[in-house]
């Protein structure tokens, strides 16, 4: 697992209080990991802080799964 992927997963485990095994690439924040709309906003903010990037709202809307978050951040770095 890349460094980015493991950091992304650690944030998801911490913020959503889910088990690490559940945080698989195709898992959806809302459908699989129990996130509500506020959780999703918080996740995006944590990614911005952790990786020192800005994720505009219109792009944040397209980050709905673990894999989408990892590839967005890999592309932004």
């Amino acid at each position: 697992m890349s460094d980015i992927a493991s950091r992304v997963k650690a944030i998801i485990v911490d913020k959503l209080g889910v088990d690490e095994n559940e945080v698989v690439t195709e898992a959806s924040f809302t459908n699989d990991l129990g996130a509500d709309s506020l959780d999703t906003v918080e996740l995006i903010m944590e990614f911005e802080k952790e990786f020192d990037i800005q994720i505009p709202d219109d792009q944040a809307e397209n980050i709905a799964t673990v894999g989408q978050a990892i590839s967005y951040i890999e592309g932004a770095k």
Partner: protein
Amino acid sequence: MELRRVVVTGLGALTPIGNTKDEYWNALISGKSGAAPITYFDTEKFKTKFACELKNFNATDFLDRKEARKMDRFTQYAMVASDEAIADSKLDLDKINKLRVGVIWGAGIGGLETFQQEVLNFADGDGTPRFNPFFIPKMIADIAPGNISIKHGFMGPNYTTVSACASSANAMIDALNTIRLGHCDVVVTGGSEAAVTIAGMGGFNAMHALSTRNESPETASRPFDATRDGFVLGEGAGAIILEDYEHAKARGAKIYAEVIGGGLSSDAYHMTAPHPDGIGVIAVMKNCLENAGIQPEEVDHINTHGTSTPLGDVAELKAISEVFGNHAKNISINSTKSMTGHLLGAAGAIESIASILAMEHGMVPPTINHEVVDENIDPELNLTLNKAQKRDVKVAMSNTFGFGGHNACVLFKKLD
């Protein structure tokens, strides 16, 4: 329209001297102090370095980590105390009509720590407003009853009353009237507060409201003692289940007491100072007696607001003498804030619980830390100094007064 009778059928307490109703009661009658040096933050530069924090409390023993993280401490405390009270009431949550169960809660401030933390984070940044999406919903004072209703599905009236230190007494009185008028069968009421924070301690210190007896925290809250120098900040929650008497009787519930009346008034005088002649305080006790339809001579016990401030304590006792006349000396008067500290918006709830338990056990908890007689206090009054007293309490009054001049008073009566 005939008003319904309202009774207490469940209690829950999370306090600086005990984390359950039973622990709280045992600490009250043994005269235990909840004050100690603050552990939550570095107090080196603070005038007051102690408070009544909760002891051995971990929110995650009661709430899952994800749930706990989305709640300010004042809401976590509310969840824990209300769960205890609901369990104590033995209400069958699968059977009751949840459309007729309300939650009316009291909080003087709300999520002060959440507010503080978010503003500190902002100040640390470059001016970009990067606030957490949970900032507002964690901080607002009405979120505690909101969360209680979400957990249990209670769909009746749901809100928080805010009147500083009178908040949870206001909540109880609203709960009482809501059931009296037939709008609800059951209301989960009470209050919670978690203001032992940098902002809370600094803010109250700036008002010269807090005791600065740093050399002896456990004796700092000393209501009615001549050397009292301010209140000791406390935190926690008290929860009370109020229920329609017929509803409680029909399900064979244990009934602790009847709530027979509530009084409300305002000093209309000063933002923080009590009126020197106690006119608002006199009015609130009179209103309360009238609302309950009883005579002053029927009151056996008063749990005072008694915060251990120089002005407030004397003004309240003078008001009691004015309202009760010669009978004042027959009343078992106390201030349990001598042990718990001042829980602000939760004070009315935990002190009402103390009075209800005093009725149940036939024992009035003491006003601890009394050493020096105050010449301004009538020596004939029984202030239950330093030791619990046996007393068959049939009618008990609980007083609370808040910054802003808000006064609220509740009367409880033992069922025959």
